[in-house]
């Protein structure tokens, strides 16, 4: 990819900034060739990659090097875009919101600083991947279980900071963060919570501070660069019991959610419960053309045929209980009785006991895997995906209402309906996968139109996206419109104070510093 300069920076000034960065981290860790820019581009970009093209990347290994980079960025007015490992697939990968930013790649900061099985926590640098932490826990034979997302290739902290979700009782990954160390835009280094005290013994254990608690202000945020953080880990349970059930019809999701939510709120089910639709199971069976060879959406009659052919329900309920065997048995009886009121099919039970091997696909037992990304192969070509992911109250009424409206819009755009619901507590994340072949411009355009229609409809009905791709960060920010976008105005005041030159990830989540305010609304998808 050709070099795109940051706004207001001349080629000469950019060159001077690059030379200064080379002095700070070594020439080998400043990457500014055309090939490097390609490698940091969004491989799933819904449109030309140059819309979100980086000017290069710099990869520090220490906090001191990060502070040096921030000093240089301020001096040269070089905007940075921070990534932990840059594997945020579907949301922009490692690419910046504003073209010309230098990616600050923290992938080399991959130390597991603490790993404590007694109290169940670790302290990590941002470059530690799920696979790295998993293998360390296995090698040291520690009785700990991780919460892993669909993409195990990414960073543990990066995923938590982006509000990623997993499927164990610790599935709300951002809630496991405890005590952050952060470099601010001024170069200052702070520790949040009671880590503000030198050598505090409990800063990764106590979730509050003395006074305001700032940890989550650095999540989905451009207020600082997280250099290390505490993360709680679940003690490995004695046993785990998986209860599987196929649910026949799409509209059954209403009673399924009304059955599961009370069980979750009463503590019978602790995990974040993932309910994928049939298509979630089909996408790794082969390619779409093997099952439906027309570009139009798979019609309902064919869906019904496929469900029969492959012995699938419309939904797959996969509940996992964690804990002592007697407790899990008792909980299972309560779960089974609750479902028996609606469906006669017995639940399939699969026990796991501590010491049993876990298989490579056991996401709900904390095994990281990248296989779920295989769904990209479904559409073939230069396959990519995005997620339309509104948050809805976890009741059948809300879930059915959202599903009916979004399904109508998706049908009208002649796109396959591929939904899942994850009950995380009192709410569901309703992730609708939108898959497209980037080699087919008409398909990309169609998906963009569909995505815009879905966002507008959800917002009009009081449902918000929990996360989004670079190209919609401003659009989603616009939907948070209470009192003339009062929260965005507050965020941008804070931004200008903590990062006066606006050099840290400008435009992230629609938060624009004054220095780059003119870029708001540009380079949308």
């Amino acid at each position: 990819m050709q070099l795109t300069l940051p706004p207001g920076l001349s080629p000469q000034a950019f060159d001077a900034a690059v030379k200064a960065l080379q002095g700070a981290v070594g020439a080998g860790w400043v990457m500014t060739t055309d090939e490097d820019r390609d490698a940091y581009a969004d491989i799933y970009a819904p449109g030309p990659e140059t819309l979100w093209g980086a000017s290069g990347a710099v990869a520090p290994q220490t906090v001191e090097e990060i502070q040096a980079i921030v000093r240089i960025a301020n001096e040269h007015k070089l905007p940075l875009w921070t990534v932990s490992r840059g594997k945020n697939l579907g949301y922009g990968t490692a690419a910046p919101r504003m073209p010309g930013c230098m990616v600050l790649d923290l992938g080399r900061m991959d130390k597991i600083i603490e790993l404590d099985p007694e109290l169940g926590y670790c302290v990590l640098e941002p470059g530690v991947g799920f696979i790295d932490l998993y293998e360390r826990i296995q090698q040291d034979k520690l009785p700990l279980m991780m919460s892993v997302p669909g993409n195990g290739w990414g960073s543990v902290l990066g995923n938590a900071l982006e509000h990623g979700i997993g499927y164990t009782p610790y599935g709300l990954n951002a809630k496991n963060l405890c005590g952050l160390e952060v470099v601010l835009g001024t170069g200052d280094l702070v520790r949040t919570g009671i880590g503000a005290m030198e050598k505090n013994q409990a800063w990764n254990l106590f979730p509050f501070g003395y006074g305001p608690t700032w940890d989550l202000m650095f999540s989905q945020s451009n207020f600082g660069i997280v250099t290390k953080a505490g993360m709680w880990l679940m003690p490995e349970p004695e046993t785990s019991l998986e209860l599987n059930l196929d649910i026949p019809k799409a509209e059954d999701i209403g009673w399924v959610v009304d059955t599961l939510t009370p069980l979750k709120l009463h503590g019978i089910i602790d995990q974040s419960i993932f309910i994928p639709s049939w298509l979630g199971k089909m996408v790794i069976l082969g390619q779409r053309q093997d099952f439906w060879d027309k570009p139009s959406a798979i019609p309902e009659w064919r869906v019904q045929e496929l469900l029969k052919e492959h012995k699938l329900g419309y939904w797959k309920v996969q509940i996992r209980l964690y804990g002592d065997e007697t407790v899990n048995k008792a909980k299972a009886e309560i779960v089974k009785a609750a479902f028996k009121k609606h469906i006669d099919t017995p639940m399939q039970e699969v026990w796991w006991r501590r010491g049993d091997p876990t298989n490579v696909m056991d996401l709900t037992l904390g095994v990281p895997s990248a296989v779920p990304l295989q769904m990209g192969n479904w559409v073939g070509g230069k396959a990519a995906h995005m997620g339309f992911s509104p948050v809805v109250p976890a009741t059948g009424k809300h879930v059915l209402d959202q599903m009916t409206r979004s399904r109508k819009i998706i049908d009208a755009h002649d796109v396959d309906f591929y939904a899942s619901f994850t009950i995380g507590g009192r709410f569901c994340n309703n992730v609708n996968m939108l898959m497209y072949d980037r080699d087919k411009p008409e398909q990309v355009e169609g998906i963009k139109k569909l995505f815009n229609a879905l966002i507008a409809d959800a917002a009009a009905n009081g449902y918000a996206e929990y996360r989004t791709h670079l190209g919609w960060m401003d659009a989603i920010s616009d939907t948070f419109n209470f009192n003339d976008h009062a929260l965005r105005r507050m965020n941008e005041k804070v931004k200008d104070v903590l990062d006066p030159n606006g050099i840290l990830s400008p435009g992230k989540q629609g938060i624009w510093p004054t220095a780059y305010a003119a870029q708001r609304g540009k380079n949308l998808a």
Partner: protein
Amino acid sequence: MSRAKPLSQMLGLGLALVAALAASGCKLVDTDNKAAAQGGPPAGGPPPPPPYQMRAKIEAGDRLHTSVTGADLFSHRCGACHLTWGMGTNLLTAQQVAAGKTPDKGLLANRDDLTADYVKSVVRMGKGAMPRQTRVDVTDSELDKIAAYLGKGK
């Protein structure tokens, strides 16, 4: 993912693939799946996916001038997708079988038709579902070693 529908069955590759992968020289941490015996799929059905395969442990050292072996670097840097039952292995196995090759050729380490230049090109430029790898993911020095290790086709 449910044990009732293991990936092998979904991919339509069945026992042959699992057996081939297990016999392909990959170090599996444990192949004795007690869970299957305690309520997994019925006897005679397809086996559950194999246990997680650990990557080689490497000392990072000077990554710009690495002294780690190509085999260990491949395992560590590419292992998220290219060891047994990785995403890349699954897709490549299907491709190799479709091309009339044996399923074990889904593992890159078993291929004898790769060249070092081809490996480097795919790593940096990407291919199909495989994203381009940055020089933080894999340094040039590391890629030289990996390409030499995989490039048995010369």
